[in-house]
C-alpha cells in the first residue's frame, strides 16, 4: 500500500503538465476546452493531494534520469519526488488555492482573445510549482525553479501587446535570473563539497559536520535564489511590476506559487542554515525584516489597488524570511512559523487578490483606489470576503493571520528583540495601509463615476472568494503548526490542544509578542479610520510633507537600478568602444595595415623595373648567401 502510494505523487505532478501540453498542442484556439482541461487537471492534482494528505503518505519515489560516470564518481541525476508533512501540506496549499484561482480565471478571463494560451500558462505554472514542492533533490528543484521563472514570464507578459506588461515580464525574469545565478552557484558548491544533491543525503552529511565556512557560503548563495523568487530586498523590484499580468495570475504568483517557492525552498533545505556556526541565518533574518519594513512603508503611499497588495505581499514574505532566519539562529530550531505563515498567507492573499480582481472587473479595469469608494454596498460578497482577508492579513484574532504572524513574533521575541520591534512596526503599518485601502475603496464616498455602475461579480468569481474565506478565517485552529512540527521534530507535534486551546495559545505562550502585535494592528486600524474615513483625497502627503514622496516613489529603487544599469552599461560600452577604437581598430587593424603599407612603400623603391638592377641585386644576394654558407 505504501509503496504504491508514493507513486501517487506522480499523479499530482503530471495532470497539469499534460494539460499544458495538451492545450498548447491541440486546444490553443478553443477556450472552453482549454479551460476544462486546465481546471480538470488542477482539480485532479488537488484530489490526489487530498488523498495523500489524509492518508499521511510519506516516502520517496525516484526515476533515474541520467547517470554519468566521470571516472571519479558517478553523478546520478534523479527526478525524485518526496512526500512528507512539508510537501503534503504545500501540495494542498498549491493545488487548493490554485484550483480556486483556476476556476476564478474562468470568470475573469471571459472574452479574452487567447484564453487557451492563458490556461496553458497557468497549467505549466502549476506543474512547475508542484515540481518544486515535490522535488527531493536540488537538481529537480532547480529545473522546476527555472520553469516557474519561465511560466511567470509567460503569464506576467500575457498581455504582451502592452509595453508595460512586456517590460514587467522581462524585468521579473531577469531579476529572478540574478538570484538564480547565486542559487546555481550554491548548488554547484554543494555538489563539489558533498558529491550529492539529494536532500536526505545532504542533510546527513552536513549534520555530520563540515568546515565552518561552507554552510555559511552555501547558505547565502542558496538564499540568493530565494531573494530572487521571493522578491526580497534588493531584488524585490520585479514583484510590484508583475501586477501587469492578469489579476488571477497575480493572485497565483503572490499566494500559492512563485514567491512562496522561495520560502518553501528555504524551509525544505533548512538543514543548510541550521548547520552550527553558519552566518547565513543572521543575514536572512535581517534581509527579511528589512524587506518587510521597506515594503510596508512603500505600501502606505500607493494608490493602485494591486500595487498595495503587491507591497503587502513583499512585506509578508519579509516576515516569512525573517522567521526562517530567526529559526536558523539557534541550534535545533525549526522554521515552522515561516511555513505556517506561508500557508495562511497563501489563502488570504489569494482571497485579497481575487477580491481586487472582482473590483477591477466590476469597475472595468479601474485600479486607482482614489477613483473607487462606496463599493461595500454594491459588491457585498466581495467586500465581506475582502474584509475577512484584510483582518487575517492584519493579524486580528481569531483570523488565521493572527496565529501564524504571532508565531513569528514569538520567535523574534525569543531570539532578537530588535527584530521583534521591527516586526511589530510592520504589523502596525500593515493594518494601517490595508484599512486605508478598505476605507478608501469600499467604505468612503464614491470618488468618481465609475463605482456608480459597479455590480457584484458573477458566481464563478464570488464562489472562489467564499471558498477561500473559510481557510482565511479558521486556518488558525487547524493545528497546521503541530502538523509541521511533526516534520521537523517527529513526536513533538502530537500533543496539540483542542481548537479552543489553539485559540488562546498565543497569549499563554508569548504574551508580550502576542499583545504587542495585536495592539500594533489595532492602532493601525484606528489611525487608518481617523485619517481616511470620508476622505476624497490622500491627506498623508499634506501631513508628512516631503517624507511622503519617497514612500510614494518606492524609495527610488527602480530609478536607482535604472541608473545603475544604465551607468554600468554605458561604462562598459565606453570601455568596449575605446578598446575597439584604439586597440582593435587602431593598433591592430590600422597598425597592421599601416605597417604593411609602409613596408610596401619602402619595398616599392627597390622595384625599379630595371632588369639589370634585379640582376645586380640577385648577384649581391648570391654573394651574401655564399658568405653566409661559407660561414665567414
Amino acid at each position, binding site marked *: 500500500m505504501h509503496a504504491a502510494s508514493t507513486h501517487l505523487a506522480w499523479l499530482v505532478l503530471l495532470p497539469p503538465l499534460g494539460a499544458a501540453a495538451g492545450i498548447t498542442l491541440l486546444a490553443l484556439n478553443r477556450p472552453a476546452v482549454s479551460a476544462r482541461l486546465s481546471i480538470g487537471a488542477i482539480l485532479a492534482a488537488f484530489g490526489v493531494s487530498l488523498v495523500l494528505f489524509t492518508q499521511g503518505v510519506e516516502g520517496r519515489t525516484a526515476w533515474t534520469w541520467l547517470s554519468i560516470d566521470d571516472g571519479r564518481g558517478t553523478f546520478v541525476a534523479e527526478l525524485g519526488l518526496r512526500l512528507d508533512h512539508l510537501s503534503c501540506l504545500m501540495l494542498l496549499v498549491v493545488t487548493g488555492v490554485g484550483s480556486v484561482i483556476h476556476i476564478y480565471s474562468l470568470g475573469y478571463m471571459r472574452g479574452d482573445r487567447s484564453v487557451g494560451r492563458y490556461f496553458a500558462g497557468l497549467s505549466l505554472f502549476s506543474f512547475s510549482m508542484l515540481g518544486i514542492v515535490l522535488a527531493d533533490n536540488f537538481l529537480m528543484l532547480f529545473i522546476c525553479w527555472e520553469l516557474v521563472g519561465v511560466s511567470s514570464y509567460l503569464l506576467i507578459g500575457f498581455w504582451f501587446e502592452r509595453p508595460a506588461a512586456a517590460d514587467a515580464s522581462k524585468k521579473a525574469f531577469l531579476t529572478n535570473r540574478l538570484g538564480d545565478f547565486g542559487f546555481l552557484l550554491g548548488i554547484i558548491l554543494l555538489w563539489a563539497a558533498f558529491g550529492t544533491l539529494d536532500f536526505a543525503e545532504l542533510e546527513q552529511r552536513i549534520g555530520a559536520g563540515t568546515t565552518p565556512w561552507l554552510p555559511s557560503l552555501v547558505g547565502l548563495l542558496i538564499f540568493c535564489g530565494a531573494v530572487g523568487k521571493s522578491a526580497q530586498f534588493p531584488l524585490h523590484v520585479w514583484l510590484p511590476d508583475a501586477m501587469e499580468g492578469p489579476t488571477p495570475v497575480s493572485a497565483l504568483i503572490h499566494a500559492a506559487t512563485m514567491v512562496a517557492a522561495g520560502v518553501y525552498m528555504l524551509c525544505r533545505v533548512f538543514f543548510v542554515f541550521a548547520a552550527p556556526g553558519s552566518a547565513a541565518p543572521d543575514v536572512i533574518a535581517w534581509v527579511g525584516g528589512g524587506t518587510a519594513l521597506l515594503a510596508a512603508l512603500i505600501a502606505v503611499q500607493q494608490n493602485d489597488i494591486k500595487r498595495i497588495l503587491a507591497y503587502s505581499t513583499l512585506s509578508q514574505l519579509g516576515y516569512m524570511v525573517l522567521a526562517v532566519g530567526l529559526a536558523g539562529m539557534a541550534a535545533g530550531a525549526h522554521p515552522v512559523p515561516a511555513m505556517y505563515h506561508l500557508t495562511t498567507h497563501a489563502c488570504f492573499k489569494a482571497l485579497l487578490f481575487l477580491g481586487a480582481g472582482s473590483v477591477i472587473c466590476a469597475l472595468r479595469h479601474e485600479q486607482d483606489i482614489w477613483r473607487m469608494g462606496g463599493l461595500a454596498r454594491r459588491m457585498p460578497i466581495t467586500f465581506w470576503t475582502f474584509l475577512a482577508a484584510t483582518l487575517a492579513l492584519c493579524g486580528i484574532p481569531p483570523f488565521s493571520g493572527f496565529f501564524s504572524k504571532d508565531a513569528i513574533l514569538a520567535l523574534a521575541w525569543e531570539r532578537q528583540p530588535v527584530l521583534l520591534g521591527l516586526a511589530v512596526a510592520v504589523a502596525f503599518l500593515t493594518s494601517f495601509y490595508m484599512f486605508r485601502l478598505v476605507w478608501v475603496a469600499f467604505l468612503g464616498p464614491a470618488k468618481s463615476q465609475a463605482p456608480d455602475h459597479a455590480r457584484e461579480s458573477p458566481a464563478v468569481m464570488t464562489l472562489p472568494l467564499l471558498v477561500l474565506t473559510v481557510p482565511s478565517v479558521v486556518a488558525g485552529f487547524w493545528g497546521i503548526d503541530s502538523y509541521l512540527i511533526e516534520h521537523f521534530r517527529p513526536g513533538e507535534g502530537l500533543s496539540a490542544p483542542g481548537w479552543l486551546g489553539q485559540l488562546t495559545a498565543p497569549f499563554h505562550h508569548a504574551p508580550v509578542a502576542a499583545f504587542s502585535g495585536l495592539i500594533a494592528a489595532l492602532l493601525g486600524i484606528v489611525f487608518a479610520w481617523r485619517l481616511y474615513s470620508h476622505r476624497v483625497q490622500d491627506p498623508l502627503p499634506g501631513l508628512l510633507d516631503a517624507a511622503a514622496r519617497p514612500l510614494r516613489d518606492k524609495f527610488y529603487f527602480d530609478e536607482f537600478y535604472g541608473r545603475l544599469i544604465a551607468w554600468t552599461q554605458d561604462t562598459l560600452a565606453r570601455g568596449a568602444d575605446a578598446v575597439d577604437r584604439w586597440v582593435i581598430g587602431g593598433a591592430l587593424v590600422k597598425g597592421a595595415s599601416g605597417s604593411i603599407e609602409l613596408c610596401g612603400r619602402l619595398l*616599392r623603391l627597390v*622595384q*625599379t*623595373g*630595371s*632588369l*639589370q638592377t634585379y*640582376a*645586380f641585386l640577385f*648577384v649581391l644576394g648570391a654573394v651574401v648567401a655564399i658568405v653566409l654558407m661559407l660561414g665567414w
Partner: protein
Amino acid sequence: MTVGLAHYLTVSVVLFCLGLLGVIARRNVVIVYMALELMLNATNLALVAFSRFNHNLEGQVMVFFIITVAAAEVAVGLALIVALYRKRQTAHVEDLASMRL
C-alpha cells in the same frame, strides 16, 4: 709550376665575372645575352676541368647537356628578342621597364 686544376678554375672564375659584368653593365639586350653565354662557358670550363682532375667523366656529360640546353636557350632567347623588338622597336634594357608598377 705545372698547370693544374687551380689554373683552369682561375680562368673559369675570371671569365664568369667578366660575363657577370657584361650582364649588369651593358644595355644592349643582345650583348647581355652574349655575356650570359660567356658565363655559361665559364662554368663549362670549370666542369670539364673538374672532370679531368677528379677522374670522373660525368662532368663532361653535364657539359654536354649544358651546351644542348644553351643551344635551345639561344634559339628561344633570340626569338624573344626579335618578338620584343617588333613590339617595342628597341633592344635596350632600360626601355624594357614594364615590370615597374
